[in-house]
């Protein structure tokens, strides 16, 4: 019974591994593949805290921007290859996640989301006033690659495999967490934090761990973004749409599912690129109209994401039935 499913998974894996060669002569499709993987890294990182722990952050652009700015300042102020800024950015992001997370994660549901929006906007406005970060104009990376360590390539193929390696590492780590004690705790907290606490789970601590881990990988996604695009300004680093994209991709595929964010990225990134190239300057606006409509439709008809359509266990829908009524009483406190 599982055999055809396993075959399909292997075929999908093989397709991902050789994809750049399949579209060998098309730079556009190679670039598209790299962009999908990059978006999937960000969304998978968000998924750790937003999906598994159920804390809906709408301010993850803070960490993405820190990663991008750490990399660009490593070049602009120290002349180093941008990727050397990545560990600094990750460290800063983890520290900031702890500072934001300790008071903010105590807030439940909507309150947490609103607090993360406010923190995100706060950081964006502050970054645009900082001379050192290039103000509203932003900063650029190396105009010409000096060594291979600048990770500045004309072809998208090297990016594709770098992003694929990072995504594989992140998904592997997520899988390991999901199967372990922490994954169990996070699911318990998501279902009912009060129940989890009463069973002795230190909910605050595990939510914080998830938030910090999520921040580290979101920051890495920002650094990788900078390496590929070579430029960041407050809007492309800390803008609220960066946060929104991460959560929409995860929610479309299935938040709290290992491959949910990747599925979401596989659908939304080509959609965004197509509408941008078809509609030119006006495309950006239309893209987000479509994004908005998709989000509303998911929320209304598919609250558990696309992957919930292929739910393996037939018992899941019947279990979800009583759960659908609990949030009304669950978040009333």
């Amino acid at each position, binding site marked *: 019974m599982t055999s055809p499913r396993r075959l399909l998974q292997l075929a999908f894996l093989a397709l991902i591994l050789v994809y750049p060669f399949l579209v060998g002569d098309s730079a556009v499709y190679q670039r598209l593949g790299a962009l999908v993987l990059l978006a999937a890294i960000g969304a998978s990182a968000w998924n750790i805290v937003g999906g598994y722990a159920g804390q809906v952050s709408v301010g993850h652009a803070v960490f993405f921007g820190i990663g991008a700015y750490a990399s660009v300042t490593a070049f602009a102020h120290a002349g180093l290859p941008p990727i050397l800024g990545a560990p600094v950015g990750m460290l800063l992001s983890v520290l900031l996640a702890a500072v934001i997370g300790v008071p903010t994660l105590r807030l439940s549901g909507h309150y947490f989301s609103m607090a993360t929006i406010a*923190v995100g906007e706060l950081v964006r406005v502050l970054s645009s006033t900082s001379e050192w970060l290039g103000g509203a104009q932003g900063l650029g990376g190396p105009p010409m690659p000096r060594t291979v360590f600048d990770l500045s390539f004309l072809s998208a193929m090297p990016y594709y495999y770098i992003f694929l390696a990072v995504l594989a590492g992140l998904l592997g780590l997520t899988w390991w967490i999901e199967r372990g004690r922490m994954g169990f705790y996070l699911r318990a907290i998501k279902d009912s934090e009060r129940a989890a606490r009463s069973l002795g789970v230190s909910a605050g601590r595990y939510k914080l761990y998830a938030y910090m881990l999520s921040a580290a990988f979101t920051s890495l996604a920002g650094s990788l973004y900078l390496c590929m695009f070579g430029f960041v300004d407050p809007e492309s680093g800390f803008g609220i749409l960066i946060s929104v994209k991460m959560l929409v991709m995860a929610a479309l595929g299935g938040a709290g599912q290992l491959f949910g964010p990747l599925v979401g990225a596989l659908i939304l990134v080509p959609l965004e690129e197509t509408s941008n190239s078809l509609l030119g300057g006006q495309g950006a606006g239309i893209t987000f109209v479509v994004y908005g409509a998709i989000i509303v439709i998911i929320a209304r008809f598919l609250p558990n994401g696309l992957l919930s359509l292929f739910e393996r266990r037939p018992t899941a829908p019947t279990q979800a039935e009583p759960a659908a009524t609990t949030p009304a009483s669950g978040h009333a406190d």
Partner: protein
Amino acid sequence: MSMTLVQVVVSGLLLGAVYALFSSGLSLIWGMMNVVNFAHGDFVMLGMYAAVMVWTALGGGPWASAPIAAFLIGTLGIASYFLLVRHIMRGPMLAQILGTFGLALFLRYGALFAFGANFKTLPDNLVGHSFVLGSIRFEGARVLAGVVGVVVTLSMHFMLTRTMLGSRMLAVSEDATAAQLMGIRPQRMQALAWAIAGAATGIAGALIAMFFYTSPTVGETLSIIAFVTVALGGFGSVLGALVAGLLIGVIESLSAYLIGPVYKDVIVYSVFVLVLWFRPQGLMGKT
């Protein structure tokens, strides 16, 4: 010097009254249904565009545009309730947040597509001229906005606390099932709350359009201002929203004057984060 400071506080209060008006709509919905409308600022933005359209198409001032905006945004509120909010209210937390957030993006970028990215302004002298009273300068448009803001917010408060209809709405927010057993239709009351909130927001948008730049993305900032005001005033309290709105208006104009215009958002957002951290029930909230 001190006269300038008084001037700054006065204009902060007048602006704050409009903040209070649209924030009380958010507070009402929140208190009744435990749903946060992340598209609330974008409702205000559409009210602003309604005022701009009324002016460019008909040449009408706020007396014409405020009722029209109230009707349009009130209708939008009812539609949002029946098509979206009613269905996601009991769903998972992520779906609740995504639902109204998606609506926000849809409206914001729909407005960008429909009206373009350029800022639109209404003529300065739409409502009378400015006058000076005891060396403090009052602009007609801002005075009108402030007075209407306070009056409409107060009437909302009295409607909710002193009338039969208000008691019915309160009953639904306390316990929808029990209210239903008493012969109140919860869905009708909740739809009414969205209509009232939408209408108040539309009026606020029409007022604020007189002296703000109208642009598709203005809703983002206004949403956060509404969150701050509701958080500070206590979730569900219209009177709290009035006090908090005036306070936020003053904080904003004082920080713009004392520190610099760029930092006024920074200060307001910081106040929000601090309130959530230290006093999540708000200044006047229960428990």
